[in-house]
């Protein structure tokens, strides 16, 4: 599978934690850790869920009782 190459700036503390995580053996390498982290973030912040939350906000704002 063809993979994209990115360049990113990370806060030093976050980078240190990531490297330590890899060194401890919890991930094969930094690439794997970043891919897995990104995948999990995208799964828990799905566009469909966000849209549903925002539209329920609008309903509360327009017609709520408080």
């Amino acid at each position: 599978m063809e993979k994209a190459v990115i360049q990113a700036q990370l806060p030093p503390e976050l980078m240190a934690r990531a490297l330590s995580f890899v060194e401890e053996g919890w991930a094969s390498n930094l690439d794997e850790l970043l891919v897995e982290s990104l995948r999990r973030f995208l799964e828990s912040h799905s566009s469909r869920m966000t849209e549903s939350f925002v539209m329920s906000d609008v309903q509360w704002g327009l017609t709520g009782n408080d």
Partner: protein
Amino acid sequence: MIESVPPLVICDAGPVIHLDELGCIDLLSSFSRVLIPVAVWQEVQRHRPKALALPCLERISATKPEPPELEAVAVALSLHTGEWEAIRVALENPASVLLTDDTAARLAAGNLGIRVHGTIGVLVRSVRQGLRTKIAILDILRSIPISSSLHLKRSLLDAVIKQVEEHQ
């Protein structure tokens, strides 16, 4: 249940920062109490310290032991410290509303039975409460992409604006 009094709200950092960016931090004064967990307070202090000048904001810490179900969902969804603490404080205040703009935090809180809303809800509610005119809020909604760090898909923002415009 019919609500007749403004709810107590627990804030995550997002709504405090976004409302201040949009010149609407005063809208938080319309709730009966506004609790800011310590970790959230520190986050806002780093990114938008002037937002914390609103007198009604109360800094608070969770006092009860953490429920195991919260730890499970917070870890699973990789919640930040502030989001985690805000949900914990909300669980200690059963009639409260959690204000957050983070989808994962909303998901976690909803699964734990907490009522959740965000910046958009607070803005739109201000029209119903007579705190802003509909025209003023529509202008603020349109300014979100340039005036705030609240990220919303353009088509979603357009749908929000349309609903507010069409509401009688």
